[in-house]
């Protein structure tokens, strides 16, 4: 499975992501936005938008990345999504997918954003680990246990959308992960680290092939990346299982 990891100035989680794909047997390749030419996307089986601060997140997190990607390859991107090839965005990548209108994608693809990842309620960038509850299976979550921990590191992650969009998302069961308190109860700050509506941490579009997640699975790929590994032994990092879920597609491809 050939995975395009999109890059531009300020994306900076691409190396961890590259390694994660490599480890599960995919063929990741960096693709710089400046080198993206017509027809190039077609060659890939999956598109991945990594975390970071594309263009400094000036204007708004992910906005410049999204606008530039849209200007360069909107039609191809639409085709990619409509062909139901997987598209995944982590953190800044999630922000880009929202700004592109590819997520929440309650009704496929939207030409204008239908949601926002707004400034955290705490008004601060925060780097911390959170507890997550898996709400559904998808090609991105099939192998993930029901409860995991992952790190977040963002200043703009508060998921907002109109009541109508939220309702549709919930009705179509598009929420893949929610923040949760360690005892399983409804999370207050900091368990919900940004104030997202309905504690939304990750969503998938209505087709099931575009996935955005604020926490960083690629930073929790190995057990020793967990903050509490000196307390709790694990064989793998919890983020590994997100990538492992994608292996099914790889295997299908290889068959």
């Amino acid at each position: 499975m050939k995975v395009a990891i999109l890059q531009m100035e300020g994306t900076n989680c691409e190396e961890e992501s590259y390694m994660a794909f490599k480890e599960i047997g995919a063929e990741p390749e960096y693709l710089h936005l400046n080198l993206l030419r017509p027809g190039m996307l077609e060659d890939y089986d999956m598109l991945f938008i990594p975390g970071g601060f594309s263009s400094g997140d000036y204007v708004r997190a992910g906005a410049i990345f999204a606008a530039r990607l849209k200007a360069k390859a909107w039609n191809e991107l639409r085709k990619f999504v409509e062909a139901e090839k997987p598209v995944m965005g982590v953190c800044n990548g999630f922000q880009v997918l929202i700004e592109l209108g590819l997520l929440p994608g309650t009704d496929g693809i939207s030409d204008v954003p239908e949601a926002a990842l707004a400034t955290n309620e705490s008004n601060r960038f925060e780097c911390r680990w959170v507890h997550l509850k898996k709400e559904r299976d998808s090609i991105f979550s099939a192998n993930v246990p029901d409860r995991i921990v992952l790190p977040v590191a963002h200043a703009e992650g508060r998921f907002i959308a109109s009541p109508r969009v939220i309702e549709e998302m919930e009705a179509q069961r598009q929420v893949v992960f929610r923040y949760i308190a360690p005892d399983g109860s409804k999370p207050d700050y900091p368990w919900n680290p940004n104030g997202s509506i309905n504690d939304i941490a990750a969503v998938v579009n209505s087709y099931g092939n575009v996935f955005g997640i604020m926490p960083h699975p690629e930073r929790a790929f190995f057990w020793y990346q967990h903050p509490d590994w000196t307390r709790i032994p694990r064989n793998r990092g919890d983020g590994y299982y997100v990538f492992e879920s994608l292996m099914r597609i790889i295997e299908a491809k290889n068959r």
Partner: protein
Amino acid sequence: MKLRKITDGVYEVSILNATEEELEEINETMGLALSIEEMKKMQEFFREMGREPTDLEIHAIAQGWSEHCSYKSSKPVLRKYIFGIPSEHAMIVMQDDAGVVEFDDEYAYVFKIESHNHPSAVEPYGGAATGVGGIIRDVLNMGAKPMALVDPLFFAPPNYDGKLNPGIKHPRFLLNGVVAGIRDYGNRVGIPTVAGMTYFHEDYVNNILVNAGCLGVVRKDKIVRSMVDAPGIKLVMVGGRTGRDGIHGVNFASKVLSEKSEEEKQAVQLGNPILKEPLIHVVLEANDMGIVYGMKDLGGGGLGSVVGEMCHAGGVGAEVHLDRVLLKEPNMAPWEIWVSESQERMLLAVKEENLPALEKLCKKWDVEMSVIGESISERRLRIYWHGEKILDMPLEFITAGVEYDRPFKIKKVERVQELPPEPKYHNVFLRILSDFNVASKEWIIRQYDHEVQGRTVIKPMQGIIGFESHGDASIIKPVHSSWKGIAITTVANPHIAKLDPYMGALYTVDEAVRNLVAVGARPSSLSDGLNFGNPEREEIMGEFVESCRGLGDAARVLGTPYVSGNVSFYNEAFGKNIPPTVVLMAVGIIDDIRAAVSSDFKRDGNHIYLVGSTAPDMGGSVYYRVLGAKSTVVPEVNINKTKELSEKLLKAMSRGLVRACHDISHGGLAVALAEMSMGGDVGAEIDVGAMQHMRSDFKLFSESPTRWICEVSPEHGEEFASLTGAVRIGTVSGDSLRIRDGARWLFNVSVEKMRTVWRGALRAHLG
């Protein structure tokens, strides 16, 4: 001042026949910050040449001779004490912009700490951000990938309510601005800020300190030197454009802060991480391709110092065409271009045949470059401006600079210690927990991405998710295929150093060792950030000499060399000087990160041991400050003991005997226990009766060096105690910290209560 126009933007300055007053006037008008002796030396030189200098030539010399570039006050002292400490592993020591030390057979690590004090005092956000930007370049120009940042910071207390001198900003404003600057720059370039310190002392009210350190890793065969050693190599500027911003930053750093500093807008820059991030890619990819012949970043001193130092180091000269430098604004004079310290710029030396490859890389990353000249075999510097030669001097004269053996005076403080009555333990313990130097720094730490790049395997906050408390050092795992790790910590203790700079320096080295050993790492090497007042004052120079002597004595015994460092003088404002502030960025190696130890208590029922011995020396302690009691009796460090005990403890750790470990520092034993409890969300029952005989409060709050608390499972207790000579002082248990001295109970505070107090104290005054 007599000028004669030579060409657009270039003047000849008459100095050959200038009187002393006229030289002084030139010095002032041109903003050179030179002494009269230095002005005369320059005059002498041009008299010998038999011609008047251009303004560019004068600026070039002033820049080369500035304190910041030439280390004129500090060199002789550094040479005597700090340089040349033998080490098996050090590869490049105190030569290039950052030190290089062997990591394993294939890789080396590269690091340095630097100050950015004056710019941060004037504009905290931009000053701190560009401080981070600058130190990243120092590591990058060795060809290394930057992997970790640290940020030791020094302020007056955030609740300071004294009078502020004109132009001085409140510590709260400064702290918020500095943290935001480091956060926005570090996070955006994608380098984790893994450690730091946030220190409070009233004497920083006029003059904050912002130090920043960076560590990177490079394959040994890819190390790039900051030199050009052959003629005909092209000199290429890559990255940001050159502007009027940052003109005279170097001279600014060598000047005392005053009311007027606010107006020195030109020395203030905000920094552009979104230029730096792709620049890092360009440089590292070019280095991977093997097309970088030599490289140096443009930091203090700008293009002038870089071209000069790079060619001087390689024994060649250079020819530069200043009109080829890409500018932010038109109509800049050549001297402005030469001395500008605009951010995000690197100078690469590249062979002509490799220029196209570099151009291609720059294009991909949308980074600008320009070939501005080349190296020549003659050891001279020649500068051209639209074809006209406007500078022609031997490099030696510009770069060699001057040195001073400044007079110094060592002040002896009489050793006295008040003995206050015993306190109410419960209250005083909570007051210590909420002392700003003890209280949680979580609000700061979490604003920095300390995990980007995915290498941070021991984090700055340690424990159960959501309950973490302070750790001693962070560990990164730099090489995917190896379990070997690099531990990083920063330390300083200005309260102790102010009473006794020599012992303060020893104490600081000891604390560096303590922190590294606490996570299971063997101390490897050090970078020294020396922040002092005005060296023209004899007592300040005395503090500097004594500090360096202490640093040298300590490191020589330990075998940990100083491989890089930085001196910041003139931290003086309104006649007040900062306390002597020796900041160390210390690096340790752990052979297998799976053996690393964190500070949080792990399991109810485990035994608690104290390693090391305690003395009743309370000078500089948090406890005495909280009580308002006076002591000048600072803790005594025996560095041989530091070495011996740390080796024993490392041995116990390598046998897997230690479940948790924390060194004892600010606030003493009681605070260390509290932090271990909070991180593990579990209490402890402690009896300090087994310690040497002394007052109970001294047992709890003494900050004696070379001590750790270790958690050990019961079955390993005996082995651990016999290896380290530790005494057992208690058991992990319950949900409160309960401490007695023999039969007498001192206090009992719930973990919950400790956490509320410890977390809230500093937080209440921030953001």
